[in-house]
């Protein structure tokens, strides 16, 4: 407590003499070094930064502008933009929220804090931070993102899936899907950077539908989804998700489950409502043009959907009993239930597209006839033939092609499988057939004895890692680094598949150059060998000799321009048959074809 004595004392002032002994404090003229963790001017590692603009979004003073730097890489598929943040220090308040939200961790604040200039140089307060600092000298890193300060939720919300023991003997869909709470939580992780949109071949409005899901506006989400993709029940299940590969959150964490979110939105709006919503796009008038599409797969039907909405009449010719293409005939039901594919197709036919199934173009009707009767023809026949290894014994009747068997399963519901089956190949089709056969073995024999052999080693498997993991869980034995040599046949019976070990698979330049070890020979017992190594199409048979001769070809495939138009002015080609197997790329092709045809017919 303060001792106040109004009288005071004569000696009191003498206490001040103690100040004579105190050292003087001299402040240096140069700026003193700031503390660790100080919030000074920005630093940005340009090679780590991906230009996602999250910093711009969180800044509460609108101090950040994203500027294009043309020397930097712009790689849409890997989620890298050549934009980098520039800071206006007239607005910045150095709160470091930008640092804490940065998904890649490239942004930080330095310990540098002094900048002065004359009026002429006033623009120097607006600068693009690099790695060194505002004045070219690195003063040291100050505030950096730490585990405590990080504002992002880097881990994906887990989505349930039925355990292997439960799912092995049926073809029911194995994923549970998101609940409303899970979907909202997962959708809230999005920073709306749009890398997914850039990476998707169809340019899907993913940030928008994710936002709609977060807001609980599922019908709005469906509207957004239908802007770019009429195959969203399909893509929400089996798409190759380029979007997730490009997701900014995926740089340090697990990417947003963009595909499962799409599935969530599509599943939770009733089919009736989806039909109503999509019918809003019905054209107001018709064009009196007719277009023939050969193949009712994603490419063909997407083109048909677009053209129909543009007012043209479209007839789709499908050789198989049912429409759907590879999604129906190649992808097993436990990944993609037929019912969901049917929903996607029904939306398209409700728009006025006519699908004629069971009609084989090339035999009953020729492409030339289509050329005569229709204003344009689209070839979207997919890659529905399987390749064969052609090793000795591969012409035995019990050596099958995966695509053939998958088609048979779709048409007939089931096939007879022997107790032991060996699959050759390590891609998604191999996984599909292996897991399909495993289920049938469980149903028919009570036990799974399916083996998958692939040239590639475990790290370089062509199939999705989830597929491989799920296959292993279901009892499929995966044997990487095995090279098929022959199908062993004794007394006309298929006994086994002989394989040699693969010691190395790629050469120094990364190209395929396998070396076998003859001494590492295994015979995998098999009552059936299934080849799932590659696919092809038989376009020339379908087109006929004359048209085949007239057309330009590019390395065995139809030559197309950037609008998917062939060298014949009336013929377009799209999807797997020209661009390789990928469902979302096929959808994107369908869009391209439709807008190209529409453009051409407008001026015809």
């Amino acid at each position, binding site marked *: *407590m*303060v*001792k*106040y*004595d*109004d009288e*005071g004392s004569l000696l*009191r002032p003498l*206490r*001040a003499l103690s100040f004579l002994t105190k050292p003087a404090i001299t402040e240096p003229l140069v700026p003193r070094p*700031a*503390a*660790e*963790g*100080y*919030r000074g001017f920005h630093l940005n590692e340009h090679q780590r930064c991906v230009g996602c603009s*999250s910093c711009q*979004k*969180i800044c*509460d*003073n609108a101090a950040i502008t994203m500027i294009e730097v043309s020397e930097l890489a712009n790689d849409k598929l890997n989620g890298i933009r050549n934009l980098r943040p520039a800071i206006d220090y007239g607005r910045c*308040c*150095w*709160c*470091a*929220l930008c640092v*804490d*939200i940065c998904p890649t961790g490239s942004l930080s*604040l330095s310990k540098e804090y002094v900048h002065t200039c004359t009026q002429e140089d006033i623009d120097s307060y607006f600068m693009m931070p690099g790695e060194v600092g505002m004045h070219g000298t690195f003063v040291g890193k*100050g*505030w950096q993102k*730490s585990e*405590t*300060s990080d*504002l*992002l*939720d880097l881990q994906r919300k887990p989505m349930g899936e039925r355990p292997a023991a439960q799912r092995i003997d049926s073809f029911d869909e194995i994923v549970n899907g998101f609940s409303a709470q899970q979907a909202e*939580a997962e*959708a*809230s*992780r*999005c*920073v*709306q950077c749009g890398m997914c949109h850039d990476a998707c071949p169809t340019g899907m409005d993913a940030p928008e539908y994710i*936002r709609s899901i*977060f807001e609980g506006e599922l019908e709005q989400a469906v509207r957004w989804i239908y802007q770019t993709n009429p195959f969203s029940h399909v893509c929400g299940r089996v798409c190759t998700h380029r979007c997730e590969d490009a997701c900014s959150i995926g740089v340090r964490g697990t990417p947003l489950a963009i595909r499962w979110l799409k599935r969530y939105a599509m599943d939770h709006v009733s089919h009736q409502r989806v039909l109503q919503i999509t019918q809003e796009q019905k054209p107001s008038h018709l064009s009196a043009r007719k277009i023939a599409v050969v193949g009712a797969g994603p490419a063909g039907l997407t083109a048909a959907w677009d053209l129909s909405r543009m007012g043209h009449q479209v007839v789709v010719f499908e050789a198989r009993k049912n429409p759907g293409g590879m999604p129906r005939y190649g992808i097993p039901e436990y990944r993609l239930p037929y019912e969901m594919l049917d929903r996607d197709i029904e939306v398209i036919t409700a728009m006025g597209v006519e699908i004629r199934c069971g009609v084989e173009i090339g035999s009953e009707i020729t492409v030339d006839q289509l050329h005569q009767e229709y204003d344009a023809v689209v070839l979207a026949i997919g890659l529905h033939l399987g390749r064969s290894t052609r090793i000795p014994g591969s012409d035995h009747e019990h050596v099958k092609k995966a695509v053939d068997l998958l088609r048979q399963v779709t048409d007939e519901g089931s096939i007879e499988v022997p107790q032991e089956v060996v699959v050759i190949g390590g891609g998604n089709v191999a996984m599909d057939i292996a897991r399909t056969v495993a289920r049938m073995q469980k149903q028919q024999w009570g036990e799974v004895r399916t083996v998958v052999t692939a040239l590639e080693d475990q790290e370089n498997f062509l199939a999705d890692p989830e597929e491989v993991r799920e296959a292993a869980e279901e009892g499929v034995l995966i044997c990487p680094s095995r090279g098929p040599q022959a199908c062993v046949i004794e007394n006309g019976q298929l006994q086994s598949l002989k394989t040699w070990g693969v010691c190395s698979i790629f050469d120094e330049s990364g190209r395929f150059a396998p070396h076998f070890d003859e001494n590492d020979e295994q015979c995998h017992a098999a009552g059936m060998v299934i080849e799932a190594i590659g696919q092809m199409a038989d376009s020339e048979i379908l087109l006929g000799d004359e048209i085949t001769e007239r057309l330009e070809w590019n390395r065995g495939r139809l030559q197309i321009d950037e609008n998917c138009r062939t060298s014949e002015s009336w013929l377009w080609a799209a999807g797997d048959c020209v661009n390789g197997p990928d469902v979302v790329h096929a959808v994107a092709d369908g869009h391209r074809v439709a807008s190209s045809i529409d453009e051409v017919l407008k001026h015809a």
Partner: protein
Amino acid sequence: MRAENYQAINHPPSHAFELNFGPNHPGIEGNYALQVKVEGDTVVQAHADGGYLHRGFEKLMEQRLWIQNIALVPRICVPDPSPMEVCYSMAVEQIADIEVPERAQWVRVLQLELSRIAAHLFTFGGHAATTGMYSPMFWGVADRDLILDLFEEFTGGRVYSIYNLPGGVRRELPEGFLQRVSKMMDYIESRLQDYDDLFFANRVFVRRAKGVGVLQQAEALEMGVTGPNLRATGLPFDVRRDDPYLVYEQLDFEVPVEEAGDAWARTLVRRAELVESLKIVRQVVKALPDIGGALRSEIPNPLAWNVPAGESYARVESSKGELGYYVVSDGGEKPWRVHVRGPSSMHAVQVLESLVTGGRIEDVAQTMFSLDACPPEVDR
């Protein structure tokens, strides 16, 4: 007119001058216009005219995401920003039902008490300057600067910490920080004798401050005055004691009161509070190493965070009184309304006017500083 009907008319004194204290004036805390009418040296009328520091915070906060506001709120009270951060976060935590981990609560107390010490040092300095004593002013600002060094170390910013967010605090304390805090408390304590000699127990000052700007308890309560100003009238009301928050219930500290209600009483209350704050900080420094745990609770991605609909009022004891945040959420990603009860709003306007009226002109500035009337939080 007949003489018997003549009534002398009592005109207001024609020699009354109207003077502007402020808005830019060394005798004014912040930017504030105090228009005084003086007759000779006596103030006969005063009119407080705020608004010069109105920056539109409450409206701005409605247009920012919940997380973006943490960068705005410290600026509402310039000398004592930390309570603003903590109080805003507390209000949001109440609405969104977010628990703050124990360690974070202790760190928040540390931040608040350091801020209180720094704010009081600043106020002493200012008050001394209004009585013409500039050495305590330089001392106050210089010693406060040393505390700002501490803030720079653990929050990254000297004045505006921007250290709190709903859920906790943003960063762990640096290595060896608590030792440096301890040393600083020792240093400040060692300075108190010098401060007493030069300022608090200095006859020059005491004679200036005694009896000046007397605030009666009844008037204080009627006008909603809180903080040291109220405690200087004899009422020991302190939010830390009467409506405890964070970990104040676990801490041992006094709530000092004085009875006289004048400028000196208020100064003494603040000086005593500073000593109590030193005590609290020492307790926190002792306890913190044994308290582990996270420094904040998880909140959703701030770009997609809807705080559930609801409203709440959170209050803390800032250096100037009861600081309150009344926050209303409509379930969206931005606040629907934020109202800040700046404690100075209560004593910087009518109370200030009434206290300077009847006093002398040289005491106008002193009264304002003795009330620690902080215009930024009046106007916002």
